[in-house]
């Protein structure tokens, strides 16, 4: 499901920390999940099985609609907005309030996945340094 770039294995603890950091940075966030290269849930804000199934369904439909593996998905509805992103062999899915700033949300998600794939905890160098 995520893109096919090689990544080192990401621990569940790092993913959980990254998810908490994303929630802290994004006041509009309602829920989110981080998935590994096989579509398994590394961290989720709720029922991991449901997040796995629903995220897989979203990526599958999007890939079919696009005719190839998509990198980003943004769907806005009256009830809320869904953001999904594949990066560095990982994937993140987030649900936000309406009118969340798309570029900022994707930027945060991409930074988080990049840092996780590099062995970090999603906060990047500055965040990790600031916390220590």
């Amino acid at each position, binding site marked *: 499901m995520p893109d096919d770039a090689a990544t080192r294995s990401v621990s569940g603890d790092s993913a959980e920390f990254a998810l908490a950091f994303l929630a802290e940075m994004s006041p509009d966030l309602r829920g989110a999940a981080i998935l590994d290269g096989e579509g398994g849930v590394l961290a989720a804000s709720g029922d991991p099985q449901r997040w796995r199934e629903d*995220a897989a369904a979203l990526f599958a439909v999007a890939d079919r609609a*696009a005719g190839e593996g998509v990198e980003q*998905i943004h*769907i806005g*509805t009256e009830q809320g907005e869904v953001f999904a992103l594949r990066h560095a062999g990982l994937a993140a899915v987030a*649900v936000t309030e309406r009118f969340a700033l798309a570029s900022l949300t994707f930027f945060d998600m991409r930074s988080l996945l990049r840092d996780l794939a590099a062995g970090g905890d999603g906060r990047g160098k500055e965040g990790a340094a600031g916390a220590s």
Partner: protein
Amino acid sequence: MPPKPHRILLDRVSGYADEAAAYMRRRRAFRRPFARLYHGGGRAEDHAADTELGGELFVAAGRLIELAGRERG
């Protein structure tokens, strides 16, 4: 007498803020549901809700929104 320089600056900043507020009001009033897919390289495509695949995208998104809402509620 010409206006003081700080008055010109304040008026200009207020003007920009008013424009931004009006833009946000229009955006909230007129924005319709959308499904946008981005490929590598920045290419994007929209899928209307009244197409088969567009409809499936909204159904999949709706399940995630419902899931996240249930967790919060």
